[in-house]
Structure formats: C-alpha cells, structure tokens
C-alpha cells in the first residue's frame, strides 16, 4: 500500500506539539520573538577528521570499511483552519559498516556524532587497539554550499501568502498549508573515497476538504525539490484549483464498471511507477520467487512506449543525491527500456550493483528508488484523449507481488467524448487489472510531465523519493471505489 501525500496527522504534527494537537494562532500576528535558524553544522572539518581516523583504525581489522555520518534538521511549519505553528527536530548519527573475513556485515550505529561518540563506536568494533592503516584520503572535498538562512517569520509569511491568496468558500471545512524542510549534511568516508553532500529537501503542500453529500472530498497539491526555500512557490492558480477540485460537484448516479480507455494524470502515473518500483524492482522484492520468476532480463513487461530510469542525478530532484548511503556516486539505472525489463535496484551489501539507501541516512540499508523518470512521449497531453475517462489525483495504489493485480485509486474521473470533457465527473474511482496487461496496453505517453514526491517513514526515519511522470493512455476496468455493504 502506498501513501502518496502527507497525512492530516502529519500536518497537525507540524502545528507544534505531538500528533494530535491543534494550536491556535490567536491574533493572526507575526511571532514577536524569532531567531534565525542555524546551519546544520559548522564543524564539517572536525567530523571529517574523526571519521577518517575511524576508517583508518577499522581498516586494520576489516577488509571492507565505510563510515556514514549525518547531521539533519527538520523544520515543519503548518497552518490550518484552527491555527499555525512550527515544529523542529534534530537528528545526528553515525553508521560504521564493516565486513569481516567470514563475510558477515557488522554495523555500529550511534546518535552521538561527537569525537567521543565516534571513538566509542570504533572501540565497539576493534576494542582498544589504536593501530591505524595508512590511507591516503586525498584532500578534503569542497564543502557543499549552505542554503540561505531564513527566519521563522519567513515561513509564517509564506504560509499566510498561500492561504490569503485563496479566498476560501464557506463549504471548505478543512484547509491547511505546510512547508517542510529537511536539511541534511552527509559524510561518506571509506578507504577509497571521502565525500560530503548537503541535501535541503523542501516541500510546499496545500490541502482542501469539502463535503459532497455525505462524504468529504479532499484535494491536495504539492511542489517539492532540493534547494532553497524560495526556489519555487505554490502558485496561486494551483492553490485555487485545489480548492475548486474539493468543491467540485460530482455527477450523481452510478459509473458502470467496465473496461475503458483511460488517461492517467501524472500523479496517478507516478503513483503506479512508484508502487511498481518498490514492490517489484528491487533485490528485496525479487527474493520472493513469485516476483523473481516474473522478471527475467529482456522480457517484455510493458508497451514499447515505456522506458523507466531511476536517476538521482537530475538537478534539484527531491529524491536525488550526490552519492547514496553506501557512498556510491549517483548514476542513472535503466529499469525498463522500450518495455523490456532491464534491471532492479540493488544494494552492494546484498550483492547488487548499488542503490543502497538508509531511512534518515542512518536506518537499515535497503535498495530503494531515488528519482524515477518515466520517459515522455511526443504528444501533448491534451491530444491524448478522445473517448474514455481522464483519471485525476492519485489515491492509494496497490501492486500485488508477482506482476499480477494492480489497483490504482483516483480522486475523480472525467468523461471524455470527441476529445472534449462532457462535464460528467465521478468521484473516488479505481482502475483495476492485471499489471502486465495494463502496462502492455499503454498506447500513448504525453510529452509534458509533472513531478510527484514522497516522504514516508520506516522505524521513525524518513525516506525521500520522487517521480517525474507524463500523462499516460491505457485501458482497464474502471469502477467506483464507493459502494459499501
């Protein structure tokens, strides 16, 4: 199951305290006392010295050694119909990874990124021995540029700007906006390399909810990137469109469940691609025989229009990086080429070619996508549809193991006839079918694309990724999601 957007609980958590507390923004005035946020760390050189020393000592006892350290700071500002606030969290950590001569991997992890903390972690692996291997680490890499500083008031101003420009209809029962910054400084040092990266991941998100009959309709919009807080904005038109979508009246009556031509908007395409990559296209999933036997290199698994690449090198991509959490420099991996299965994402520790990522940079290593790109076509998306349904705004996507069944939830389906929208709109629908059939039926891919981003947790640590996807035309069974016993 895939959650594609921040939950309301996450928004509320941004309001300052715990998971279930809404704090009122009493007078609507700016906070009177604010301090500029500090940089993640001003001691990069010190950390490097400790890590180099650790690697040199570990290399005496172990043939394979890697030190990964992170200093991370998260700032979340949120405003909703009841209040506003800012929450902060700081995390630091060090992972020392060694492989002994019997082939067993050992990890020593600590949240204490101080000289004493690094030393204690080294001692846990090599005891009190102070012998060091002679390693030429070379000159330290250039320090990554620090992002511009900002004050809490700037976050509040931006949130209020997002909110004020959208004159809310009285039917909107819930409205919220959130800005989320994850600022991470990451060091990776091994006998063969010394690397450092600064990743500032920014998300700006709005959500609107209105009642439609007896059920709430929720609409969301988001922009996300790596870079500065002000590099991109949620433009007014997008925010207003989000409100309009929440307020949109659905066509009464029943949508007959049957095979139809559908056009998936980029959020649905992204949700599908993300679910496929995580459920099927990693070494963790291909250990399952029902997945592994369906994926033989060179097998046609989708229409020839489909080429899928995991590319963390795309500048400013939310899921991108300079090097992964095993220290490997970012390189694109082609997963599907012209519809043929090519490769899965794999980590070195699992015997693969590298795409090892750790939740929060210190969690347990897992093969995971970074920035997936589904190659665009040559047709503008408006020209893709003639007859059928345009499915918009992803909900939950489920991909069952073994390339079998897929269920793609959408907030609404718009009827198309003669290349025009008829005005009929059905709420909460799903596209259901055999995955290989659905991918094989792709008959159109738009030239224009949008980016969706994902941030979820594993063991309380975040995982960041993004998908650049076009509009896609295919066929499948479409039915309403609602219709309960």
């Amino acid at each position, binding site marked *: 199951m895939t959650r594609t957007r921040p939950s309301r609980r996450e928004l509320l958590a941004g309001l*300052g305290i715990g998971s279930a507390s809404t704090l009122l*923004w009493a007078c609507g005035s700016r906070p009177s006392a604010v*301090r500029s946020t500090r940089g993640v760390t001003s001691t990069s050189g010190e950390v490097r010295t400790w890590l180099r020393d650790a690697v040199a000592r570990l290399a005496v006892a172990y043939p394979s050694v890697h030190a990964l350290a992170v200093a991370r700071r998260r700032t979340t500002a949120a405003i909703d119909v009841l209040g*506003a606030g*800012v929450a*902060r969290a700081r995390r630091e950590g060090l992972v020392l990874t060694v492989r002994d001569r019997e082939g067993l991997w050992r990890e020593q992890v600590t949240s204490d990124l101080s000289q004493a903390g690094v030393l204690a972690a080294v001692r846990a692996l090599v005891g009190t021995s102070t012998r060091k291997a002679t390693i030429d680490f070379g000159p330290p890499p250039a320090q990554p540029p620090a992002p511009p500083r900002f004050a809490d008031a700037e976050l509040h101003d931006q949130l209020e700007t997002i909110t004020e420009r959208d004159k809310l209809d009285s039917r909107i029962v819930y409205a919220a906006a959130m800005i989320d910054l994850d600022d991470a400084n990451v060091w990776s040092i091994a006998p063969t390399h010394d690397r450092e990266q600064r990743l500032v991941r920014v998300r700006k998100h709005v959500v609107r909810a209105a009642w439609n009959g007896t059920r709430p309709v929720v609409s969301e919009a988001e922009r996300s990137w790596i870079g500065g807080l002000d590099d991109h904005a949620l433009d007014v038109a997008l925010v207003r469109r989000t409100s309009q979508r929440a307020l949109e009246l659905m066509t009464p009556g029943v949508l007959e469940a049957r095979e139809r031509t559908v056009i998936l908007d980029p959020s649905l395409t992204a949700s599908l691609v993300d679910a496929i990559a995580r459920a099927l296209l990693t070494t963790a999933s291909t250990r399952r025989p029902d997945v592994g036997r369906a994926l033989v290199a060179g097998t046609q698994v989708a229409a020839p229009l489909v080429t899928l690449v995991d590319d963390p090198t795309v500048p400013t991509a939310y899921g991108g990086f300079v090097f992964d959490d095993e220290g490997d420099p970012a390189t694109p991996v082609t997963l599907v080429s012209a519809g043929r299965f090519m490769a899965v994402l794999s980590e070195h520790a699992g015997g693969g070619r590298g795409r090892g990522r750790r939740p929060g940079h210190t969690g*347990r290593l897992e093969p995971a996508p970074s920035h997936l790109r589904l190659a665009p076509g040559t047709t503008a998306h408006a020209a893709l549809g003639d007859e059928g349904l345009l499915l918009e705004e992803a909900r939950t996507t489920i991909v069952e193991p073994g390339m079998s069944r897929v269920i793609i939830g959408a907030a609404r389906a718009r009827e198309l006839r003669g290349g025009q929208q008829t005005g009929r709109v059905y709420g909460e629908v799903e596209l259901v079918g055999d995955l290989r059939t659905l991918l094989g039926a792709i008959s159109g891919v738009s030239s224009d694309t949008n980016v969706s981003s994902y941030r979820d947790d594993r063991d309380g640590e975040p995982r960041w990724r993004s998908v650049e996807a076009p509009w896609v035309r295919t066929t499948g069974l479409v039915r309403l999601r609602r219709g309960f016993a």
Partner: protein
Amino acid sequence: MITRRDLVRALLRRSVADWIVLEHAQELGVADDTHDLRRREHRTRSTVIIHHDVPRGRGSARLEITSSSDGDALGLVDEAISLAATTVGPAWKTAPPAAPAQVRVLDPALAERDLVEAAAAIARGVRMRGSGSSVSVAATVLRERITVQAKSGFHDEWLASQLRVEGLVIAAERSLEIVREARRISDLGLAPAIAAAQADLEQLGEAGPPIAGRADLILSADALLHGEGLGVWSVFAAQAESIAERQGITRYRVGTPIAPGANQVDEPLTITSDGALDFATRSNPVGDDGDAIRRFPMIERGVSVGLGLSVREAALRGRDPNGGVRNLVIAPGTWHGKPGAGRTIEIRRLHALSIDPYTGDASLELALAYDHRDGRSRPFTGGTIRLDLVSALARARRSATTLQRGAYLGPASVWIDGATLVV
C-alpha cells in the same frame, strides 16, 4: 553535547509556565539473515515540551534532539520558547501530576542480555522451524530507559523492551511475509505464525480465482490484524481522536451509537483502550506528553463513551488526561467461529488494507480466502471486499476465542453478514 540534566538546568533558569523533558536512551540489536548482518545501535533522543503563558493565552512547543546536537541547552530552551510564542491559543492549566500507570513493559529475559545475541538467537530459532520451506528473518530487539521529568517535580524512569521480527516464508515458488511485534520474546508467537504461513502457502498453490457476489464474511486473525498494529480495529482509534471529534469530523459523537442500531444488536460492541496492559506493545507508565496513562472505555455496548485525551485536550474539556488511545481490548462474543449455512468467504490473509480514518470506508484486497458454499470449501486468491468498517464491526459477531497480539486483545475472528466480493 546536551544532556537531559543540561536541559533541566536551562529550563529552571527561564520563566516558563510548564515544561516536560523526556529522554529515551535506547540500545538496539539486529540480526538480519538475508544480508548476513549484525547491527548494534545506541541512540539517545530527548524531547522538550514547553507551555508558555502570555496575556493572550498559552503557546506550546515540542523540540526533539539527539544527544550530540550542537549549541547550548539554554539556546535550545530559548528556541522552544520562541516557537511556543508562535502558537498561542486559548489559556489552559496543566493538570496536577498523577501517578504513572503500574504496568510491566520489560522482558526480564532482556534486562541484561546482549541484544545482538538475543536477536541472533531469535533468528536461529526461526530458521530451525523452516522445514519444508525457506524462512529468512530480520529480528530487532530494543531496550530503552525512559526518563520523564517535569516542572511540577514529577520524575519517573523505567526500562522497556520491544521486539520486532520480519520474516519471509518461501515454499512451492510462493512467499508470504510475516511481521510480529511484542515486548517479550515469549509473546512473539513465531512458531504458530510460521506454521500458519506454511499451511497457507500450500493452499495458495491450489487457490483459484475469486467469484464475485454476495456472501457473509469471516475475518480470521491475520486478516483482522493485517499490517502492523490494530488492523481493521484501527478505525475506532481514529474515531476516538479528541481533536477530530472537537472539529466535528468524526463519524459519531460521544454518547451516541457508533452506527444506527449498534446498541440494539445481540452482542453490542465494547472497546476499551488499555495502556496499562502488561507487556502489550502500546503500554507505558507515562505518555508522550508526560501524562499518566489510564485505561478508559471508548465504546460501551455500541455507544461511544470515551476519547483519547492529551494534556491540552483534557484541560480544555475539564477532564483528566488519559494518554490517548493505546492498546485496544475488544470484548469477545459468543460466536463459535464456524461458517454458516449460506455462502461464506473466510478471509485468511490480505494483500492490502486501506481505511479512510474519517469515513471508516475500507478496501480489503484478498491474498488468500476460502469460499464456503454448499458444504464445500474452495481456496481462492484475489478480489476486493469493501466495507463501511464502523458499521460492519458494530454489527459483527465476535468469536468467543480470544487472541492477544501486539497492541490487541480481543476476539480471534469475526463474522460479518452481507458483504460483496468484487473482482
């Protein structure tokens, strides 16, 4: 490095209406067969909660830090105060400290033991049970010392343990994932979990396609508790969230039946949140906001009677805090656990369960189920069941047999009449 003591000292130097400092000093051991990995982790996480009173009301802030965060403790406290000043709302007073819940949350077998060795022993034990199938696991064992200190003078600390085992059982070219969480090694129940997975893998080999249509449903334990935590019962935890209730976006209000007629069925539903249940995974003496955890009824005989109340929500409602919704204790019923005379679909396992926490609408994607009809039973895989979970569980017949797993204590299976299977 900022320690808890530094934080407390700094807080005492500032004029703050109320504060709480929580510290989690954690050790983890991981044994992961798949990656031939042994992982040892030490981490300390501190949380500072500040309530700051100004003439226009009270503001609150929560800051989370790891042990070696840069900067001084006083600077951090000032930062928290300035954050609290941005969130001023109606005034409220902190309730006087109450006695922590008396609950056991530490496995005595893990009090002193090396955690990597404990995790490796669990993994070894699982491998030995894998005859006829391949079983690989990753076992994580956590031991933590939690310390809570408040401005009121309240001070408490305790040790807790938590285990998590993720396994992949492979047989006959098929696989099933199992996940178990517990506070004690003896509560993991891995042997029956693996045996059930092996049996289900055999059945999957014979499973046919689903046949659409109306049927009664039996949700057995693995389907009932799909995923991590409370499974289908989590819908009631969401409905008992006091913030959502105050905003009027819950399905039902306190004092009303949870669904029309829910209080008039043969065996009305009764649910209690019990954060003081020994060795349950969501038990603790004190909650995340430093408030004492209390057992409280959420639903009594089909009527909503209680909500999870944080310190602030309780104060605004003039009530005592209870630490929020924790472990769920569901009163068992009298149903014997067998299919009825008509068509009955017995759901053994789900691929996925998605629940809208506000409407209670749920989609159950079936991984393995039995179609009982005319005295015969046929395994199948695939298909979707859609339910209004609140209404369906309010009317469901609950088994007399009970099950305790993780944060759940209640019937081992339930019977729901009149659902539709779609394919």
